[in-house]
């Protein structure tokens, strides 16, 4: 009952913050609209490059264009979902640097709850979301998927899991901020390069990269395995079947581990600005 109440409170708090954040976004309509279009164009160009290159071939390793784009849509939609809830984690170094984190610490609400609520990057949410949605609508009906209730449930749960995997990666990097180490560039390099790899079926890559994408930065669970659940390409025999269902488990397990590390790092937080003295 208490847990239920807490969850309810969190949702209401999130709604409050979302309303205020939205109000700010609307204050700067033109600026935010342009940012949205910039993100939309940047991501669309990435897709178009793949599109035009792949058009030269009928298929690669048995993957057709629509199937590739369906796989790609997971990346966009899960990133969009990730940004909707974890912008504060993505921008954690600025949350600390601006002193906002000190403020969160003196409020009688859980830290993670506040970080999730506090910031929201509407432009990235809509930009990635729009590209993802277009790809999804274009491909989901043409790759032969039966949208049964089970499949729809799988899709939603997996998408949430995929967003949590990405949140965990960002949160891992944010832990270092507690020791006053800036890892933003290293993180971006690792994150966005892994993500670029994950835009294609991992069977395209040598074993080393495959293993990296499964065990180290588990982007294979963000795009490849979820897509394979629906597409069932014969190459699936290369991997363990169970991987198809692992996305939410990997997400939750990773997040739990990283959250423990994060909680521990909190003890080393040294505040910002004039905090040294």
């Amino acid at each position, binding site marked *: 009952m208490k847990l239920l109440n807490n969850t309810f409170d969190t949702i209401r708090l999130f709604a409050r913050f979302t309303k205020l954040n939205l*109000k700010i976004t609307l204050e700067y309509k033109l600026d935010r609209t342009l940012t949205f279009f910039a993100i939309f164009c940047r991501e669309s160009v990435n897709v178009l490059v793949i599109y035009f290159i792949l058009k030269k071939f009928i298929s690669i390793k048995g993957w057709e264009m629509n199937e590739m784009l369906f796989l790609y849509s997971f990346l966009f939609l899960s990133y969009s979902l990730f940004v909707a809830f974890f912008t504060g984690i993505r921008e954690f170094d600025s949350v600390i640097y601006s002193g906002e984190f*000190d403020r969160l610490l*003196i409020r*009688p609400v859980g830290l993670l709850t506040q970080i999730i609520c506090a910031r929201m990057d509407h432009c990235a949410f809509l930009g990635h979301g729009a590209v993802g949605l277009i790809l999804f609508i274009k491909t989901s009906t043409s790759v032969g998927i039966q949208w049964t209730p089970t499949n729809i449930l799988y899709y939603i749960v997996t998408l949430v899991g995929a967003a949590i995997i990405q949140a965990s990666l960002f949160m891992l990097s944010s832990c270092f901020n507690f020791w006053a180490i800036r890892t933003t560039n290293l993180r971006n390099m690792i994150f966005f390069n892994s993500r670029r790899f994950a835009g294609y079926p991992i069977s395209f890559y040598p074993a080393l990269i495959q293993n990296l994408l499964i065990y180290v930065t588990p982007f294979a669970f963000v795009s490849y395995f979820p897509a394979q659940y629906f597409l069932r390409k014969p190459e699936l025999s290369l991997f363990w079947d169970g991987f198809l269902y692992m996305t939410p488990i990997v997400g939750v397990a990773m997040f739990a581990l990283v959250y423990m590390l994060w909680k521990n790092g909190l003890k080393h937080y*040294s505040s910002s600005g004039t*905090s040294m*003295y």
Partner: protein
Amino acid sequence: MAFIKSENLVKEYKINVKKKGLLGAINSLLIPEYKIKKAVDNISFSIEKGEMVGFIGPNGAGKSTTVKMLTGILVPSSGEISIGGLSPYKNRKAVASKIGVVFGQRTQLWWDLPVIDTFDLLKFIYKIPDKEYKKNLDMFSELLEIHKFMNQPVRQLSLGQRMRADIAASMLHNPEMVFFDEPTIGLDVVAKERIREFIKYINAEKGTTMLFTTHDMQDIEKTCNRMIIIDNGTIIYDGSIHEIKHRFGNYRIVEVEFQKEYKNLSFAGVKLINSDGNRKKFKVDQTLMQVTNLINELTQKYEVQDITIQEPEIEQIIRDIYQGGICLDKNVC
């Protein structure tokens, strides 16, 4: 029972010792060398409910670090803190609902939104009952005149307005204890005065315990009875403002304008500190000479046109303490 108790509080920082030059920078990157700096070194004090305490010290003395530990922002390296019986970092949320914090140099208001939006959000965060919220809002609006700019985005407010709104924001939930970190920094005389009046009023009305860190001695003198002075991470004075004046300000400056110029004026316990023709300035040590006696002697023996007596200002005393002119610990001096 004291509301705040701090026992042997220590905060250490590990500082990476930077070496000079490019080679030095590469060297420190590869073989980092650390130095331990104690920002706060064994601080103990307790504050009773309803007290108003000034917490002062020169820049870098350890004030902010101490306040950050008291409010649960930083975890102490060692030592114990209790706020209303709870440890601020172990029971962060419980303590957070009992306290309010005003950072003069940072705002907790949403920069792009009207003040009232932040207030409404705080009502929700602190779960303030409707009645209480409305009562406080009305009271603060009236005392701080917030209603005049309640619906303006914070970025358009003047510093004085913003500070008033910030103070109101941190007191909406009726905190038992409020920490003020330089609440009047950068404000004009009238705005400062208004904030001091408000703070005093709330303390009297609600019995809120308050702790100030500030560099403005007027803030302290006009609002607090007690003062804690800290330097190099340790407490060098903890007592009443009256006492510090009594102990270290036990002298008067007497300025005398004579009818004509006298030479070789000398009295026991009196030092001539300035002489400008007919005008003389004396420093009178009250343990050796009463000011009244001096005045008697002056008026009887000399032709005096005007006399003014000045009390030493607290600011001067504090300046002397910071610069080492006054030694607080008699065992060391």
